[in-house]
């Protein structure tokens, strides 16, 4: 708010003094020049491919048509898989939140050096290939895997538990991969929260729980929101984990797209699937923005 309020004032000042105005414009041009490489890069590597994707998706054998979109809407499987994709992404986000928030909170209460050390532990799996982690989970979770063998030997279960090739397997694998994306932004924001505020609240008679719920929690929200958004969006495009750890009902949309490209050579239809996924994601993004405010998430307006 403060920033937007200041801007007209500067503008007014510039308008009065032509010399100032010239300087100001020159500086703006220089700044824009610095921005240019990044803009070009985005244009060439991001905007252009997305436009191509859109164009590809409305071509059917050389003529413009919405045939591919009709197919997505009319045949059950595509919307069903889309639904599965969003459900899994939501579930993963929720689990990451439940696991990641206390972890980030704990880390933020430690001395900087200790916190850094522990953060490395959070990051190590992050540096390991997804494929490797997925196969490692398979070794642990399968019917005759390590976990089931232990539980059987300890007499805790009589039958091996089914933890793989179903939703559980997919969720475990994906949460493991995505948890750092929740912990890191949450930790960064929590670290920046002034602990004196909590002490002040307690001084003024708040219980520790009240202080946490009414002071710390709201202040930590931007980090949590950023983490959730990252996890959710990354989860939407997941591919390997559901393919290797899921059952027949855990097929996600990326798998269908891959199949269209790999075996059917149907690039336009894959493009249409991609566009629908993108559109739905954007809608969710907008709703999310309305509810939580992305400017907060990306640190534009902290004051």
């Amino acid at each position, binding site marked *: 708010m403060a920033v937007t309020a200041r801007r007209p004032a500067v503008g007014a000042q510039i308008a009065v003094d032509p010399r100032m105005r010239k300087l100001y414009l020159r500086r703006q041009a220089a700044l824009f020049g610095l921005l240019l490489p990044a803009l070009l890069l985005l244009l060439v590597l991001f905007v252009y491919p997305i436009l191509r994707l859109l164009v590809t998706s409305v071509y059917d054998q050389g003529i413009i048509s919405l045939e591919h979109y009709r197919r997505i809407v009319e*045949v*059950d*499987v595509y919307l*069903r*898989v889309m639904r*599965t994709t969003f459900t899994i992404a939501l579930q993963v986000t929720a689990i990451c939140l439940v696991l990641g928030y206390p972890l980030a909170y704990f880390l933020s209460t430690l001395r900087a050096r200790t916190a850094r050390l522990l953060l490395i532990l959070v990051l190590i799996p992050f540096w*390991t*290939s*997804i*494929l*490797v982690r997925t*196969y*490692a989970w398979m*070794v642990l979770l*399968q*019917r*005759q895997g*390590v976990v089931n063998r232990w539980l059987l030997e300890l007499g805790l279960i009589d039958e091996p538990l*089914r933890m793989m*090739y179903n939703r559980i397997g997919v969720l475990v694998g994906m949460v493991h991969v995505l948890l750092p994306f929740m912990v890191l932004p949450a930790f960064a924001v929590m670290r920046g929260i002034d602990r004196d505020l909590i002490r002040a609240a307690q001084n003024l008679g708040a219980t520790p729980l009240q202080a946490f719920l009414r002071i710390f929690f709201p202040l930590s929200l931007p980090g949590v929101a950023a983490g959730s958004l990252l996890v959710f969006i*990354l989860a939407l*495009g997941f*591919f*390997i984990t559901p*393919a*290797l750890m899921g*059952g*027949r*009902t855990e*097929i996600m949309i990326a798998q*269908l797209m*891959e*199949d269209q*490209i*790999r*075996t*059917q*050579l*149907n*690039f336009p239809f894959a493009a249409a699937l991609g566009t629908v996924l993108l559109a739905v994601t954007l809608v969710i993004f907008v709703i999310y923005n309305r509810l939580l405010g992305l400017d907060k998430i990306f640190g534009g307006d902290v004051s």
Partner: protein
Amino acid sequence: MADERMELVLRRLELANRIRRRQFLRLMAAAGLGAVSLNALVACQQEEETPAPGGGAATTPSPAAAGPGPEFTVAGYDDPNKWKGKTLVFAGFGGAMQDAQRAAVLEPFKRLTGAEIVEDSTDLGKLRAQVDAGNVEWTVAQQGTFEARLLGRQGYLEPIDYSIVDKADLLENVAREFDVAVIFWSTILAYRTDEFGGKAPQGWKDYWDVEGFPGPRAADKVDGPIGNLEFALMADGVPKSEVYQVLRTPEGVDRAFASLDKIKPHVTVWWEAGAQPAQLLADGEVVMTSAWNGRIDAIQRQGAPVAIQWNEGLLRTDSFLVPKGAKEKELAMDFINFATRPEVQAELAKLIPYSPTNGKGFDLLSDDLKQRLPSAPAQKDVQIEADNEFWLDALEELQERFDNWLTA
């Protein structure tokens, strides 16, 4: 995201290869996870890298597959300067397959013709991009025959020049307008030999018979309807010779899906990568599965209690092709001719159990080895050959129906 993309690329290679373990294990080792008990996978890897001279049960892995090939000669290739100064860019599936090809095909071609050889990894998207951009780097690429035919149909390939490629001894359904099949492989029924009290499943009827052959099963998801529908019909009593005839009718397709309905509750794993069924069987996760023959062969020789039922298997091929606009077309055709000579194909089969498309190739192989090869007469006669003609027309619709059925 970059990481994710790399994984995607890796996995696509993995899928396409059917035999690519090496990279994955290297990653495992790099991650320090080598100690995790991945017995089956590791063994599988060692075996796949182990050539099987004469098909004996090799117990110690040897690195020969990656080493220089034997100094054999090939009739018609006696001028070591024939292609001197020319470069052939070969795009294969990588992994153990390309290692074997390097020893049995690429290096000998270089030695016998003087051509320089550059290797790359094949990829449908890359091939299309090269042709679309009019800048074709590859001279010869490998693809599944189905994909090759799809590319041919869409105008992405050069026609094969049969004045250079000698097709006299090539088997039926091997030499086509835009591609030449270079190996046979099979989707077969694989099972654990210690699960059914000495009984062996004789075909898909037994795979469907959950009372006679109890236990969890795995099935192929990566090929979608291809294979699954054929197997479902045979399980339902359709004779091998009539499978595609039945499948070409709407009632036949309904019948196949109705048959699949019956086995659906008993399939606990739908596999996505070729290594999975071998691992699932070796670990005892399932008692029966459809699988690619090379993978099962590998764990079999490592000593896993598994066996292949060739009866009612689905015989398929991989092809060599030349992208449209490739430079050095003549060199490409000569290389394809070379790769389909009996001497070369026999060498390849000794290194990896995918078998010759040149009928004469079998004359150069031991009986032991022949028993492990999908297109050797004893195995070929009891299988059905995938009808690419049928699938080219039907895949789009049936894949959709299959996905719908699977996720419902």
